[in-house]
C-alpha cells in the first residue's frame, strides 16, 4: 500500500504497524514522536496501531531552536 511519510510517498506492506514502520525506516534509538493523520500516536500503541492506505505519517524530532 501507499502511505506518505514526512511528505514523501512510500510503498509499504499492507497491515504495517507503527512499530513496523520504525523498523522499515531504520530509525535510530533517539527521542521522537509519530503522528498519523494529524493525531499523535502514543508510544504504547506503536505495536498495535495499523497503518492504512493513504495514511499521512509524520516522524518528529527535536532540533536546535530558540
Amino acid at each position, binding site marked *: 500500500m501507499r502511505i506518505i*511519510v*514526512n*511528505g*514523501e510517498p512510500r510503498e509499504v506492506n499492507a497491515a504495517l504497524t507503527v512499530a513496523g514502520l520504525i523498523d522499515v*525506516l*531504520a*530509525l*535510530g534509538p*533517539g*527521542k*521522537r*514522536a*509519530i*503522528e498519523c493523520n*494529524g493525531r*499523535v*500516536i*502514543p*508510544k504504547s500503541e506503536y505495536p498495535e496501531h495499523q497503518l492504512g492506505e493513504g495514511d499521512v505519517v*509524520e*516522524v*518528529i*524530532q*527535536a*532540533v*536546535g*531552536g*530558540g
Partner: protein
Amino acid sequence: MGTLATRDGDDDWLLAGRRFHSRLLVGTGKYRDLEQTRDAVEASGAEIVTVAIRRTNIGQDRERPNLLDFLSPDRYTILPNTAGCRTAEEAIRVARQARALLDGAPLVKLEVVGDDLSLYPDGLETLRATERLVAEGFWVLVYTTDDPVLAQRLAEAGAHAVMPLAAPIGSGLGILNPHNIRLIVERCRVPVLVDAGVGTASDAAIAMELGCEAVLMNTAIASARDPVLMAQAMRDAVIAGRRAYRAGRMAPKSHASASSPRRDTAA
C-alpha cells in the same frame, strides 16, 4: 565569596511549580555544531533550554547525532517551542507532538508568528492557542509583544509565564521599550521573561533590573564571535542585573553629589 553567597540568599524562582536557580534560559539554534551548542549551554549555566520540533530527516536519522543526546532531558528542562506556526491550530498540533516526544512533559513555549519580516507574534492567534493549550493541561510560556494589555490577557488566560520580546527575534537591538516591560512586570501575576531581541550582556542586565524573572535568548550567544565566552558573559549579566534589582538602585539626581569630603584638603 562566602559573604556574596549569603547576600544572595535563597533567590531561586518558580516556574510551573518547579524551582530553578539560573535566570537565564537559552535556545539551541544557529550554532556551528552540536558540540558548540552543548559547550555554550553549559557555559551559560542555564537549566532550561529551548528546542524546535521538526520532521526527522529519514535516512540520516540513525547516523546523525541527536540534539537530545548532547543536551540530556535528565540534566536540562527541555522547553519545546512552536516556532514556525502561523495559527493556533498549527501551534496546538506542534505542542502535542512535543509532549509526546518528551514523554508527556507539559511545558511548551508558545510562539505564533503573524509577520515574516518582523517575526512579530500574532496576538489573537496566540491568545486562542493559550486558552486551548491550558485547557489541555499544557504549561504555557507564551511569547508575546511588549503590549501590557495583551500580556495581562495571556496571564489571565492561564499562561504560566508571559514572555514579551525586547526587540524582534534575532535582531539584537536590545530592549526597545523598557517602559512597557516594566508595566508588564507590574501588572502580571505570573513570571515575566524577556524573550528575543537581546544583543549583548548589558541588555540582559537591563531586563533583570526592570524586574523580569528571567531572560531567554539564542542568537545573542550563538551569533557572537565566541559563543562560549558570550554565554559566560550573559550568565554574569543576568546575575548582576538580578542583584542590582534586589539591591534597589539609588535615585537618579540631576545635580552632582561629591563622594569625597568637601573640606580639609591640604592644598
